[in-house]
């Protein structure tokens, strides 16, 4: 009802706050999430409001943080943990892959782990090495995890609320460079849930498939393309696992052409999966092979060079131009 103009960081903070209010078992912890409110201030004020038992700093050890969340979830809590940067989630990889992802399966559903692992991820913020990784493909490849990435302020709120309410573990990828993006939003407005992609813009000529930080870039590219006379559909995945085949394939079938836009290195990634599964399902609707605009297969570059790694409007438009229009 009430529209407010807030940043994605504020929306995430509000989501945590509201979730903690709604449910006493929601616990927020990690490195520097207490007094400091997190290095990105996503947990700002939560310790003050809910006390040290509900929002607290831990020792500096990510495997410990995730492992402790597993134990807390086994015993009735809903932990929401923060990896300070997604690359610092790697020390917790064994816990995530061998336990978080497998516990329900291993115990035939006797143990469920309603927990959220929040990961500030991706680049575009001038961060030094290890601060701009895009690690979603590791988690998306791991059966048992649910992997979500908001691209709008409203979705940041909704998806985090839904992730916390979700009965199973969710890896929640937060596009750092959108933390400060502001939008006029009504947080009480209901948004689609986990597992649903959303068409952010409609256009008949080709489809851009994006998630997280590349959604605004794709929209910008669509804007430019429209000015140049080409109408692009933009699909925001929102949820990587589960994947919304229905929405994505409908858009691709309708447009006959598609470009996947993702910041992560392309090789053996979520973007590979999108190309593969959409091609498998929509082959005969395709006028051209689906193109990918992704990060190169290199470690994330230092700040002074990061612009070359990031999918930008021009690169997207070039890829669209490349979709063999002369054939059609």
């Amino acid at each position, binding site marked *: 009802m009430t529209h407010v103009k807030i940043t994605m960081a504020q929306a995430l903070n509000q989501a945590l706050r509201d979730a903690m209010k709604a449910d006493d078992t929601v616990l927020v912890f990690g490195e520097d999430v207490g007094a400091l409110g997190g290095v990105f201030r996503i947990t700002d004020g939560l310790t003050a409001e809910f006390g040290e038992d509900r929002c607290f700093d831990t020792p500096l050890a990510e495997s410990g943080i995730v492992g402790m969340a*597993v134990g807390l979830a086994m015993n009735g809590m809903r932990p929401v943990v923060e990896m300070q940067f997604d690359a610092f989630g790697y020390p917790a990889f064994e816990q995530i892959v061998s336990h978080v992802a497998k516990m329900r399966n291993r115990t035939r559903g006797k143990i469920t782990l309603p927990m959220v692992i929040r990961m500030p991820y991706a680049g575009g913020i001038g961060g030094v090495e290890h601060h701009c990784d895009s690690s979603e493909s590791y988690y998306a490849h791991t059966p048992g995890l649910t992997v979500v990435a908001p691209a709008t302020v409203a979705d940041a709120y909704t998806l985090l609320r839904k992730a916390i309410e979700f009965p199973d573990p969710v890896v929640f990828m937060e596009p750092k460079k959108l933390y400060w993006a502001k939008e006029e939003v009504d947080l009480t407005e209901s948004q689609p849930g986990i597992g649903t992609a959303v068409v952010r813009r409609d256009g008949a000529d080709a489809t851009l498939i994006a998630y997280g930080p590349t959604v605004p870039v794709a929209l910008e590219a669509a804007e430019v393309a429209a000015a140049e006379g080409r109408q692009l559909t933009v699909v925001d995945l929102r949820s990587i696992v589960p994947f919304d085949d229905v929405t994505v394939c409908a858009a691709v079938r309708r447009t006959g052409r598609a470009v996947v836009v993702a910041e992560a290195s392309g090789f053996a990634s979520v973007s590979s999966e999108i190309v593969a599964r959409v091609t498998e399902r929509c082959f005969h609707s395709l006028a051209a092979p689906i193109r990918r605009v992704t990060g190169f297969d290199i470690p994330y570059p230092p700040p002074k060079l990061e612009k070359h790694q990031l999918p930008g409007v021009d690169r997207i438009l070039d890829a669209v131009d490349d979709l063999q229009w002369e054939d059609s």
Partner: protein
Amino acid sequence: MTTVEERLLPSAEPVRLIDQDGVFHDHPSYLKPASDLLVDGYAQLVKGRRINDQASALVRQGRLAVYPSSHGQEACQIAATMVLRDGDWLFPTYRDIVSIVSRGVDPIEALTLLRGDWHCGYDPYERNVAPQTTPLATQLIHAVGVAHAARLKGEDTVVVAMCGDGATSEGDFHEALNFAAVFKAPVVFFIQNNEYAISVPLAKQSVAPSLAHKGIGYGVPGEQADGNDLAGLLAVLGQAVEKARAGEGPQLVEAHTYRVQAHTNADDAGRYRHEDEVTPWLDRDPIKRLEAYLTQEGLLDDAVKQRAEEDAAQVATALRDGLMPEPVVDPADLFEHLYTEPTPQLKEQAAFLRDELAREEA
């Protein structure tokens, strides 16, 4: 030396109340457990041994895929559960089947993993026994979470979290002890130091004075005990559990024992140790010595012994019978238990498999 160090460092020698000849010795810090506890423990040891040996036999017969036996470590296995109350939690490893069963889990369910029909076969909440864990030391930090949750809920639960000597080298061991200490979580970390991690002897695993000496680095009291002396273990673990329950935070206990058999049936211990090394440990057997003590003290009459033997025979029969029929496994289970609500992708894949199986049958 300050009192902090006296409080946190282990006894100079492993605590031992009953020696290998069955003779009781007074200890300055630990009392003798009540006689009925020891008699009960004896019966459990006999049963535990039988489980180990029956399970190994079933491997040889092909009824179990693999069995990491705790033969010779039964005093640790039994003590770990005897000190727990009903609401407490046990976090076992792959080697701790005897503990799991002595905690009341159905032996056939407990052997599901090692039989190969599913990963964890029992309901962890039924007896508060966490799923057996293979990735080493990873369960220790789960134990901290479970313990911390209990305290947040105002419950006086204690968690016994088990691991081997080898597992102490993993980073997760470190993180678990530190988290437990910082959060004052009521966890008793219980290391069964059986001198080997598969083929790797303790000397290549650690050059610390003892594994119990690791406690002080976290502000956690460490203690060491003779792992083949049930009386000493009950005293040490009992005190550790009491302290944890009283809010004194985590405790670390190292039991010095020995892996008498190979790592599992698939292992060939002859490649890395001499039989000579094993022999003296047979004399330190936990059952023998408790039997000697109880007999000397007139606590072990024939009736008790017979009941223990009968109980053991019964569980052995239960194992043989329970593992006899081919287990019924359902391929649909592959997709059922991954998410509360299967993803569309999994539903598709489940349908694919259903269809495939239907065609195979046709």
